[in-house]
């Protein structure tokens, strides 16, 4: 977790809703994701990265997971914990993140 990762905070602060403007956390629960989805480069894992991926792609994946599509393992169970607006906010936040070097 190095500096690059936090640039998105700024973008979120400027473009996000008032609720997130003061929050360096990103929207609801975004920080928990990096337990599995690597933010540092060079981590050898089959679990995909999220930083910098198009927001529409992340949001579509989350909604599919909620419906049990895309044959998820654990993401089907996790995605159900998020509302529609929360998914959009999460997706926008990750899209704005850059990988740590």
């Amino acid at each position: 977790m190095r500096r690059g990762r936090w640039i998105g905070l700024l973008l979120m602060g400027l473009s996000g809703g008032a609720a997130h403007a003061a929050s360096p956390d990103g929207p609801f629960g975004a920080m928990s994701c990096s337990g599995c989805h690597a933010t540092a480069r060079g981590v050898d894992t089959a679990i995909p990265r999220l930083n910098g991926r198009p927001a529409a792609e992340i949001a579509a994946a989350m909604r599919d997971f909620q419906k049990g599509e895309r044959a998820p393992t654990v993401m089907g169970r996790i995605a159900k914990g998020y509302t529609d607006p929360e998914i959009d906010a999460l997706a926008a936040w990750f899209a704005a993140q850059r990988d740590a070097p």
Partner: protein
Amino acid sequence: MQVGAAMVGALAAPRIASAQAVGRVVIVGGGFAGATCARTLKALEPKLAVSLIEPDPVFTACPFSNAVLGGLREIAQQQFTQDGVERAGVTVARRRAVGVDGKTVVLDSGARFQFDRLVLAPGIDINWSGLPGYTEAAAEKMPHAWKAGGQTVLLRRQLEAMDDGGLVVMSAPANPFRCPPGPYERVSLIAHYLKTKKPKSKLVLLDAKDAFSKQRLFQDAWAKLYPGLLEWVPLSKGGKVVSVDPADMTLATDFAKHKAAVANVIPPQRAGRIAEAAGVADRSGWCPVEPVSFESRLRPDIHVIGDAAIMGAMPKSAFSANAQAKVCAVAIVARLAGREPVEPRLINTCYSLVAPDYGITIAGVYKPTNGQLADIPGAGGVSPLDAPQEFRAREALYAEGWFRTITAETFG
């Protein structure tokens, strides 16, 4: 980042952008919770003075240490230094904290560290008065291996030295304890070792409970993979161990004495003892906290995260400790800037291996509800019972990826 921090600061609270240190945070314990919190604080607010107190120069991770016992991994793959924490700009003191005196942490060297906010992340200690006969000396003969390191190596050596045909006896404690699925993953991987290396041996798990995490998934796998080798004795069948005797290697229940060739006693636990010294542990031995900021309910300028804290529905896991640490860092930055912390969402996923290519998971999503972290209804749960082997193999693969990812984030 300079720009980013200044901008976030400007949006949030102008004070943060000022040139001098914006506060002193001291963190006790450099494990999954403490090291993550230290690194996250420096990433969020480089001007914070962050100190980490940790006596051990090498941290040995518990997750995947059961695979070391199963002969599938070496202990060196579990070990991490604090170098990445120091590189992040954190001052590391290789000492043990022994007390908290007002706004000062006192170390065993006599040194004192002043703080504006203190984070206690000491993990667990064994409750040495919780099981008659189980002392620190007894643990050298009947290892707990519930703090990874020398204990893990000792138990593995005992398993390797045991004759084929020996009886391995394990005991699991009542709730709450570190890593609810941990004893059941361990019994699985020891069974795997015996099945492949010492097939005439037997394994008994004496349990102080009648139910446990991922129970159906574990029991289905045991029936399939380890029939006749592994026996689980629940509380209602006399499984609760009431005393142990290292001299004759026995574990006693109210009904029987079990003599072991190798004994693994997973004893009752409590928060690391600095929690009690600091006045943040309650009579249960664990630390009650607010669910938004993880501030102690007993001393609000002290945050408690990880295994030591009472986190409602969240289990005591490395995944949880890491997630709580990031939320705690955000809350501390907010508090120091005079803002209220935002309500968090947290995730936990516990991976367990029952065999090398056979992984199972339990997941949860949590939010503060009525003063506790509670499950978000409809989310979370365990792997499907009827999944094909390909699914189990994929979860085993993801488990390894998870370990590499979380240790990279925690230790740098």
